[in-house]
Each structure stands twice: as structure tokens, then as C-alpha cells.
């Protein structure tokens, strides 16, 4: 009966407006020409064409490990360039025939480890890398990942061992940078920076990808040990390579924020709102400048963290902790996130947010694991030392 339905509609509309104020509702677009979604790239884009070609090759012969690894690797590169985690799932799908095998071939194991570490499943990734290295001790890529994961877990002797192996199976530049990376957090930061600089001078032929990685490390080391001029020089050199790299942009933005140069962050990242990592830096810069887009960005970030929580994702806890602490002023929430993050990731940036949150929440005891690590590792960091000093003063 029509009238009944109208009343029901009005009632339902009233109720839903009351209960879900501001929530978007499904709609019917008004014209066939209305564009609903922009795809990241046209099918004609050369990179997309290459991906599609590989996809078709794999569809024709899904058991071809060579094609599967090539496709998975291309997808992984796409994640690094675009920051879109969907490609990680696509990479995993390409590796489907080997994904659940107890003892897959070396190539498949290394690829599986790369995908697993993206999801912070470090122990499973290390198990795969170790097995791959037992079968093929000369696998430079596996040693590089082994070193990187050990660094994230703050297991420096293992990291150093992996770097020593890497030196034999990779370029001198990468080998040197790997060891310098470990040295830089274990009390030898000045020597580490010098080693990297001299290795860079001796390897002018290094690929842009290698240079990017090495320059980014150098910049971080210099910034940490309180040499902003040298750090900026390294960041600028890395940016001049003009490779899409979300990590580099985030690190440089943090450097600028630390130096109270938020306007430059807005200019640097103005087109990077798609990435959660970079959107956080934008929002922080907008906050420092009291700039208008802050509220919108903050709202978007909150929505994305909520969406991740629904799914059970914990990949961006460090960013979420900074969001809660620096944008929302929610110290206890930030501390809980930073603590949980620190059980998985123990790099200097993870340590820093835990110290900041513990300080803001007046819970110096929560910072204990970081203080212990600082004493044990001999890390040289002006920012961490200041925070630790404040925390001890607060005790």
C-alpha cells in the first residue's frame, strides 16, 4: 500500500538521520556520464601494459615460477611507488601455487618473505629467508631482507652478519651502506656517515635505485646525530633522483617538521594525500601553520585508521600513535598504540613516539624498554636523548 510505504519512508529517514548524522548514504548517480572512480592508470599506460602482459602470461601458465615471481616483484614495486597495498594482495595471488607449500623453491620463498614482512609478519618472513639462504647462501636479495628485518627488530649482531654476507653478493656500495646502517645506531654514527659518503664517491655508476636507498639512509643518520645541513644535502640529492618513493618523502617531511619548516612540507606533499603516511605529515604541517585543510585531513586520517581497525590491521600503529598524540592530544591512546607498535618494530622512529607518548601521558615506566635499548645500543640521537632526559626528570 503506497501511503503506508511513504510514512514508513519518512519515519525511516528521520530515524536514520538522527542515528547517523553526517554519514553518507548510497545514492543513484544522475547521469551516465558521471565519473564515479578514477583508476590509478589507464590500460594504455606502459607500466600497466607490462603488468597486464605478465598477468596474461601467468594466466596461461600459472605454474611458471619465473613469470609468477616477476609479476609479484612488479606488484611490490608498485606498492612502493604508489603506496597502494592492494598490489600486495595481487602479488600474493600470483604466488598462490607456492604460498602454502612447506618447502617451496628458493625464489618463491624469498618472494613470500617479502610479502609477509610487508604485513609485519617478521618471524614467518625470517623463517623463509633463513631456509632460502640455507639452500642458496649466495642469494643477495635474501641477505638484504634479512639485514633489514633484523634492523627493524633491533637485532644488531644478526643484522651485521647479514650485511657481511651481503657485501660478498652485492655491490660494494650496498654492502658498505648496510654495515654503516648498523653502525649508525650502535655508537658509530660519525664513522658510518663518512663510510657511506666515501662509498658513494667511489660508485658513481650505481643504479638510481641503489643511490636512493643509500642517500636516504645517510640523510637519516645525519639528521639523527644533529647535522641538519649534511642531512638536508643528502635528502635533496635523493629527491633529485626523481624516483617515486613514499618512504623518502615521509622521512624528509619529518625532518622539515622537526626543523619548524611546515610550509615546505605542504609544498612537498600537496599531491600526496592518497598515502596515509604522507597525509599524516600534511596534517601535522597544516596544524603547525593553522592552515585550513587541517580539519579535513584529520577527518580523513581518522576514517582510514577506523577502516584499518575494522579489518584488524595493525600496519600503521606508529602513524596512528602520532595522530592521536600530535593532532588529537590523546596521550593515553597514543601510548597504548606506541607500546604495541614497539613490540614489533624497534627502529629509532618507533622509539621516539613511545618516549613522546610516555612523557605526555605521564607514564615514564612505559618508556622503560626504549631507555634500556638506548643504553644497550649506544644510539646517538639528539632528539631521543632530550626526551629520555625529560622522562628521567619527571620520575
Amino acid at each position, binding site marked *: 500500500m503506497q501511503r503506508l510505504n511513504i510514512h514508513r519512508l519518512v519515519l525511516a529517514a528521520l530515524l536514520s538521520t538522527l542515528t547517523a548524522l553526517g554519514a*553518507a548514504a548510497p545514492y543513484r548517480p544522475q547521469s551516465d556520464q558521471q565519473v564515479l*572512480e578514477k583508476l590509478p592508470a589507464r590500460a594504455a599506460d606502459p607500466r600497466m601494459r607490462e603488468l597486464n602482459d605478465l598477468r596474461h602470461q601467468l594466466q596461461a601458465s600459472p605454474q611458471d615460477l619465473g613469470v609468477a615471481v616477476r609479476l609479484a616483484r612488479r606488484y611490490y614495486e608498485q606498492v612502493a611507488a604508489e603506496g597502494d597495498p592492494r598490489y600486495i594482495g595481487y602479488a600474493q595471488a600470483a604466488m598462490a601455487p607456492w604460498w602454502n607449500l612447506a618447502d617451496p623453491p628458493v625464489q618463491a620463498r624469498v618472494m613470500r618473505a617479502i610479502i609477509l614482512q610487508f604485513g609485519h609478519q617478521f618471524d614467518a618472513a625470517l623463517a623463509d629467508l633463513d631456509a632460502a639462504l640455507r639452500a642458496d647462501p649466495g642469494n643477495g636479495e635474501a641477505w638484504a631482507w634479512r639485514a633489514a628485518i633484523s634492523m627493524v627488530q633491533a637485532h644488531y649482531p644478526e643484522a651485521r652478519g647479514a650485511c657481511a654476507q651481503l657485501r660478498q653478493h652485492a655491490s660494494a656500495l650496498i654492502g658498505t651502506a648496510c654495515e654503516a646502517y648498523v653502525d649508525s645506531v650502535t655508537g658509530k654514527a660519525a664513522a658510518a656517515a663518512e663510510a657511506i659518503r666515501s662509498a658513494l664517491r667511489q660508485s658513481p655508476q650505481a643504479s638510481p635505485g641503489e643511490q636512493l636507498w643509500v642517500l636516504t639512509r645517510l640523510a637519516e643518520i645525519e639528521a639523527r646525530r644533529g647535522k641538519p645541513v649534511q642531512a638536508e644535502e643528502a635528502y635533496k640529492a635523493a629527491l633529485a633522483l626523481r624516483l617515486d618513493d613514499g618512504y623518502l618523502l615521509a622521512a624528509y617531511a619529518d625532518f622539515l617538521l622537526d626543523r619548524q619548516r611546515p610550509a615546505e612540507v605542504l609544498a612537498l606533499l600537496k599531491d600526496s594525500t592518497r598515502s596515509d603516511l604522507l597525509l599524516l605529515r600534511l596534517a601535522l604541517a597544516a596544524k603547525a601553520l593553522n592552515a585550513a585543510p587541517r580539519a579535513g585531513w584529520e577527518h580523513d586520517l581518522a576514517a582510514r585508521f577506523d577502516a584499518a581497525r575494522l579489518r584488524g590491521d595493525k600496519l600503521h600503529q606508529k602513524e596512528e600513535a602520532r595522530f592521536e598524540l600530535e593532532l588529537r592530544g590523546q596521550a593515553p591512546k597514543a601510548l597504548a598504540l606506541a607500546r604495541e607498535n614497539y613490540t614489533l618494530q624497534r627502529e629509532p622512529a618507533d622509539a621516539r613516539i613511545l618516549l613522546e607518548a610516555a612523557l605526555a601521558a605521564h607514564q615514564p615506566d612505559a618508556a622503560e624498554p626504549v631507555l634500556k635499548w638506548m643504553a644497550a645500543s649506544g644510539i646517538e640521537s639528539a632528539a631521543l636523548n632530550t626526551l629520555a632526559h625529560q622522562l628521567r626528570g619527571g620520575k
Partner: protein
Amino acid sequence: MTRLTRFVVVLFAVLCGMLSAGPAQAHKPSDSYLTLTVGAQGITGQWDIALRDLDFAIGLDADGDGNITWGELRAKHADIAAYALARLAVQGDGAACAIAPGGQLVDDHTDGAYTVIALKVDCPKPPAALALSYRLFADLDPQHRGLLKLESHGQTRTAVLGPQAPTQTFELQTISLVDQFLAYAREGVFHIWIGYDHILFLLSLLLPAVLLWRAGVWHAAASFRAGFIDVLKIVTSFTVAHSITLSLATLGVVSLPSRWVESAIAASVVLAALNNVVPVFRGRRWTVAFGFGLIHGFGFASVLADLGLPQGALLLALVGFNLGVEVGQLTIVSAFLPLAFGLRRTWLYQRLVLVSGSLLIALIAGIWLAERVFNFKLLPF
């Protein structure tokens, strides 16, 4: 096409393009949002699936320009529903439930546009446990997840569906037959209160109950008892009559075209109201209540059918709804009778309420009649 229309069309297309080119969408892993609502009348749902994922799976960007338009999406609605529903299975207590897709709309989530598929899930009987098997995009993106919101009887649960746990079972708080019965009874009460045509029909018949027609004029009835008996006769015969046809129509014994029924209901209101101005039936108004009550019953039946009838509990729904209608009706009558009795001697009641009120009712019902016969809309109710 005039030049101006052409200009507006072009401008509109440009504006739409600009709007959707606005903020770039965020990156997040692929999720779909599945909401299932278990109610007294069955299970309904809504499934939001990202256009980006659907494009990757079955291709939506027909012209390959990197933009998915509403036209391109619309053309794929059937394919999308078939693709998605082949990858979702629902079982109620171990028996497969049929999932029927409804229309599709569009919604925007933090990472872009989603198609929104309405779902209707039919289980053989109201389930105590619901098992969901979810395989959407499992072969293309093993990290895709379905974020489930399951609402049953005021309780909301969430779960993450995907290859990590392909089939998950949810115990539902079973609704007792009593609750189901009460739910239909409430619907019955609700319907009579907002079904103005039924109320006006009944009131038209009841208005003269506290009066007597003598020598071409209405006089106040002497006793409350006389008025009460008149009301009782009218209400009882209306109830018996509409219960008969409501039952027959709901059980599928008789069916009449709804436009015909709705028009006849409007006509019944006109006649009942005019009878107060020029009394034809007088003391036999209960026969009118009975005759037209049969028609009103068909109207109730179509409402009950719209609400959805539970399999296995048809009779329960019918009796519950019918009793609800009677309770709603009795509430109106018990408010009316004392008021009318108290006012029956006044000019206000005899002239204004009875005559002018009845004329007004006849006018409104006349418009309804025209609306329903000629299928147009004039009144907002």
C-alpha cells in the same frame, strides 16, 4: 536539442568530471562491507564492493579511459551481481539459503566509490545459526577481506570474512514465536493508526451512533447504552468482515487487483460520510460496515504481504497482524465514544462535526477515489 540545452548538458558533464576529479582517494587494502539484518520478517542485507576491485576482476572501464562512469557501471550490474553472489553462500542451520540481489546504488568510502547491492536472503526456516562462506576476490587478492556487520534482534556483531577463515558460523539469538507474534501485532496497530482511509471510514460510521434520526433531523440519543450497542454492532461487523477477507487473501484463496481494492476503499469512505448528511442506511449501518469491511480486508492483506510473511509462521503472522489491527481500532473507538457521547447534545457536534466533518471526509475520500482510479497524486497523505 536547443542550443541552450546542449550547453547545459555539456556544462553538467564538465562539472561532474570536475567534482569526481576532486580529492584523490586514499589507499587502503581491499575490503567489502557486508551488512546482514535478521528480523522477524526474514534476512535482508547490503553489500558494498569497491569499483576498483570489480574493475580488476571483471573489467568495468569499458572504454579504457581510466574513468569508471555510472553508465559503464550500470551496464555491468547483472555481471557484478552474478560474480559476487557466486562467491557468497549463506546457510541457515545447515540448509542453503537463497540470496537474491536487488537494485544497485553507489556509495563513497574512504578509498573510493563502491557499488551497493541490496540483498534478500531466504532461508527455509528462521535460522538459529547462520553460516557464511565468503570467497570474494580470494583468487585475485588473498588479502581482500569482507567486513561483516550482522544485526539480529537489536544485537550487532562484526566479523572479518576472508580466506583466513572461509566459513564462519554465527549463533543467532532465536526470536521466540511470542516475539514474532508481537512484532506483527505492532505492525497491525501501526497500520491502522496511519491508515487514514480506514480511520475515516470507521469514524464516519460511528459519528451518528450517539444520535437518533427523527423527522429529518438528528437528535441526541437518550442513553449511553443505546450508543454503545450501536458502536459495538458496527465495530464487530467491520472486524468480522475484514478478518474474513484478510485471511482469505493472505492464505492465497482470493486475490483482487490492488488498484481496484484501493479505489473501492476510497468509495466506501465517500458513501459512509455522505450517509451522515443524507441518511440512507440509518440503523443498519452495521450492514454497511460489514459489506465494505470485506473490501478493507483486502487492503490490510496487501500491507501484510508488503511486510513479508515468514515461512513456517504464516498463521502466526496473520493472527498477530489481525489482532494488532483490532487493538488499534479499539483504541480509537474507546477514545471516540465517551467524547462523542459527552458532546452529542451540542450544536458543535450535531452540525459542525457531524455534517461539516462528514462533508470534509467525503471530499478528501473523493479525491482519493479520483487519484486511485486515474492513478495520479494530489494529496500528500
